[in-house]
């Protein structure tokens, strides 16, 4: 990357090394009453709208949700897929951009990876909300037991368990290893208890050539391992659907469709998070026009792929003209109770992103915030529409039914966003939200020029 481009990364001129340390660590250590208020509100919403209805549901049974004989899966499963999807951009994007040595990644990747981690955790929570007997959920793990009864590795759900477990582990390792030198920086800049905590967290990092060398190699290996992993995770999630015989779910195109949709919604999620970091954490100096422009271009490409796959799905169904498929599609887009949600999804995810052809819109942070949220609303409804319009009408017309989410489900859906926000708010006070050493790395060539001048 040329130094001209490097300079573009910083809207207000490149900062000095010491300024980078100061800015990022200040954002970590200085906590205003506004932060505590936001944390308080979001934790209370999580408690009230997520935890409380969940406890109620555990006590009375999953019947508290609106699912029935026809629709055994509902919003819990569609939300699970949404959150898994949201997790797809952070680590994947970070790894791909690391391997391709795209320097603009360096000021945004830490928060993007955190988004991955916390949306994965939220998704894992939805699995637990979904199952009927939460207290036996550990049976899905391959744990030795006196019954010699192991999980069924031939089940698509077990692929899920293994994939998500691996993804959670790999993402945690990836974000933690990338933060080690920054933990050391926080340690050096603080005193007392915080210093002692970060001294432990950074494993005694000193930044010797040997340590950097090992970290560089390990980090590249993590990145190489994480990319195929991320692709496999959402493929496997899509196979929960595609491996059934249900018309509307049994689609060969689902794996690429879901992977593309996941990266799409994840990238939109990154834009939202970046806006928040700029606005509330004061990272405007590090996250600038170049970042939003690149992310928006990525969003545009992903939206076009997403639209293309949607057209494929409709076209093949229409051209093959098989009755079950026809009926499932027709019910989804026109005759069913959720036809308007399908059109909303098309409007939000296929048409709204076309605005991104304009550079002026791409570089407008506030507009991009709106667009990114609109896209994610569309993606949330996409998953809901797939579940809610396919399951109630499978094969035998006598048992056709409908499905509407209950208040408990709606409340838990709303609450899950608060759970995510709470986790993320905790993150920005534990991890340096912008990678200190990698931003400095991009500054190195600029610094050289000044020194030689």
């Amino acid at each position: 990357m040329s130094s001209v481009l490097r300079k573009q990364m910083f809207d207000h001129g490149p900062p000095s090394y010491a300024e980078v340390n100061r800015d990022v660590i200040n954002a970590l250590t200085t906590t205003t009453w506004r932060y505590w208020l936001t944390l308080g509100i979001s934790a209370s919403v999580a408690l009230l709208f997520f935890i409380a209805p969940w406890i109620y549901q555990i006590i009375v049974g999953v019947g508290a949700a609106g699912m029935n004989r026809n629709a055994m899966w509902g919003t819990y499963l569609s939300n699970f897929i949404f959150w898994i999807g949201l997790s797809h951009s952070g680590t994947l994007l970070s790894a791909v951009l690391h391997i391709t040595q795209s320097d603009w990644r360096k000021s945004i990747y830490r928060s993007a990876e955190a988004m991955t981690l916390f949306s994965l955790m939220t998704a894992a929570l939805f699995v637990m909300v979904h199952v009927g007997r939460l207290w036996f959920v550990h049976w899905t793990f391959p744990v030795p037991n006196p019954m010699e009864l192991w999980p069924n590795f031939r089940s698509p759900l077990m692929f899920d368990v293994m994939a998500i477990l691996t993804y959670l582990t790999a993402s945690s390792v990836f974000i933690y290893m990338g933060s080690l030198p920054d933990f050391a920086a926080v340690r050096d800049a603080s005193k007392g208890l915080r210093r002692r905590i970060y001294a432990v967290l950074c494993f005694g990092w000193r930044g010797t050539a040997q340590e950097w060398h090992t970290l560089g190699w390990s980090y590249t290996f993590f990145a190489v391992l994480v990319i195929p992993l991320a692709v496999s995770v959402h493929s496997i999630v899509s196979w929960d659907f595609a491996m059934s015989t249900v018309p509307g779910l049994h689609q060969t195109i689902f794996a690429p469709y879901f992977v593309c949709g996941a990266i799409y919604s994840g990238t939109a999620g990154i834009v939202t998070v970046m806006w928040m970091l700029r606005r509330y954490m004061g990272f405007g100096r590090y996250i600038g026009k170049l970042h939003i422009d690149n992310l928006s271009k990525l969003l545009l490409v992903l939206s076009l792929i997403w639209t293309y796959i949607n057209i494929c799905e409709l076209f093949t169904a229409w051209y093959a003209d098989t009755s079950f498929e026809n009926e499932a599609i027709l019910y989804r887009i026109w005759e069913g109770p959720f036809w308007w949600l399908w059109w909303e999804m098309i409007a939000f995810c296929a048409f709204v992103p076309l605005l991104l052809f304009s550079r002026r819109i791409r570089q407008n942070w506030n507009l991009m915030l709106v667009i990114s949220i609109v896209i994610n609303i569309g993606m949330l409804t996409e998953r809901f529409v797939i579940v809610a319009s396919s399951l109630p009408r499978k094969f035998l017309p006598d048992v056709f039914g409908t499905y509407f989410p209950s208040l408990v489900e709606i409340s838990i859906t709303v609450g899950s966003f608060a759970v995510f926000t709470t986790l993320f708010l905790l993150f920005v006070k534990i991890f340096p939200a912008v990678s200190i050493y990698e931003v400095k790395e991009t500054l190195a060539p600029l610094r050289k020029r000044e020194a030689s001048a």
Partner: protein
Amino acid sequence: MSKITDTLRQYRADGYFAEFDYHWTMAIDLDQCTGCGACVVACQAENNLPIVGEKRMRQGREMKWLRVERYWEGDYPDARLSFIPILCQQCDKAPCEIACPVFATYHNQDGLNAQVYNRCIGTRTCAVYCPYEVRFFNWFTYTWDEPLEQQLNPDVTVREKGVMEKCTFCVQRINRAKDLARDEGRRVADGEVQPACAQSCPTDAIVFGDRNDTDSAVSRKMRDPRAYEVLKELNTAPSVVYLKNAREPLHAADGGGHHDGANAQAAEPRAAAAEPRMVEAESAVT
């Protein structure tokens, strides 16, 4: 060495069992079915099915391992009605079985699709994968009011909330017959074991037996040219066979109708295209 290769070959064989000990099969003669619903009641009594009440019925949460589906053709008074009792088809290639992450459902040596209640964690994937929609979930822990709990069948467990359940071909009766036969050193004779639905059918429309025995009543029914399997095209290899005479469509001209007829034909392939009504409330009556 050959023992190892034999074992390996067996592990690689489709479905593991070369042949089932017994291959329990049910034949339902739809030409004899009057849609009286005695089988539904018998099933409810035999298998400790909870009575969920009107409210939950309306929510689509009834527990009926066996239901009589009704399909109407034409408009009153020029209408025709056909019945089809749908229960777990005990598929040999059951879509539900691949779904369970904890082996709560598997295929046993009798060709039955077994459901292990105390292993179930309630992911409900099996029910989603089941094309016949014959799996029922305990949304709540159901209770029986006094003195109804007195009539619970002691041979069958009651299920708690969060557990999937379904028709077992009255496995408790099968096991008792097998125990008895083993004690006497013989195989279970044809007709010796009957599930509650077959036993209660006033027109003997339901015949139950071992398909491995080529002389059994059910094997003879299977050889009947009227025999067909519901949703056979999904390759589920069901163990329930239906018998039905092909009929002329009621109105050949306006056959098809709103739903394309395809779904109705799936349930009754040689029957005419039928216009499905929203029959949820009607099922409640049966």
